[in-house]
């Protein structure tokens, strides 16, 4: 069986596993923290958004390079 097309999308699919797991961990910690202490939601939300953006950056670099290269 011959598969045509570029391997870019396969590469992106593999590369998206890491950030997917990472973002799940970050928001699991955020939900746990807010569940234990609901008053901390404001403080924790800033840190959660920051962690999400840092982990998402790798996935976004993956899809951008999948189209560019």
């Amino acid at each position, binding site marked *: 069986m011959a598969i045509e097309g570029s391997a870019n999308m396969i590469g992106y699919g593999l590369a998206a596993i890491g950030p997917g797991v990472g973002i799940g961990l970050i928001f699991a910690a955020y939900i746990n923290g807010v569940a234990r202490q609901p008053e901390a939601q404001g403080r924790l939300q*800033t840190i959660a*958004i*920051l962690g999400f*953006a840092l982990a998402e*950056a790798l996935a976004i*670099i993956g*899809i*951008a390079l999948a*189209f*560019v290269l």
Partner: protein
Amino acid sequence: MSLVATLIPRGEEFTPPGPGDFNLPPIGPDKTFVFLGETMYLGVTKPIIMLVLSAVLIFVFFRAAAAKGAMVPGRLQFVGEQAYTSVRNGLGRDVIGSHDFQRFVPYLFTLFFFILLNNFFGSLPFIQFPTFSRSGMVYSLALLSWVIYNAAGIRAKGGLLKYLKHQCVPQGVPVAMLPLLIPLEFMSNILVRPVTLALRLFANMLAGHILLILFALGGEYLLVHGALAVKPVGVVAWLLFIAISFLELLVQFLQAYVFTLLNAMYISGALSDEH
């Protein structure tokens, strides 16, 4: 009609969108000139007009909001005040600290709304081009941020060497590991930070817009050129295009917020007293 015949594709090939689609044609006289060995266009391109337009729009909005200055604010003044205080408190005071955040609030405020409006240009009808999908503009913003946080740190620590020691030498580390850690920290804190800052915003805008173009063009190709049984997939592609447009709105806001937040954190890290 046999089932197989309804699935065989016909028509010309589908060309996927790529970064070449982001080179917009110049507006103005169709002449080029040579400057330092590169051919440059004589007209302006759409992203340049959008940059200037966004700056003018933000200035006009906040000028109109601050015009009356009443003790009991009207609606426009209230919106302007909420926008300003949310950046000043949430991003300035809470991240940099209440002692010396006021010097940096103008920069953070301008940065946040500039990036926000330019990102939203990617979703506004008739414009629909996120300015920061052109990498040159993003890297200049990152360069400015780099200069600001380094200059703030050098002035706060009182010298280049003391500032570098503050950034590159973590405390509580055994001396044997320092030759390994210092180049790593130098690269990570001073060399790589502007690159990741810019790359995050640029790649998000580029990839999001390419995804939208892909769904739109792919849906059109499937509907027009696809075999009979494949045509409904084109409609599904267009429905997903609408769904991902909403996701793009969220991503555009989030990227502006994260760029400004990271800037505030780098400034706070450069100014901080303890590790």
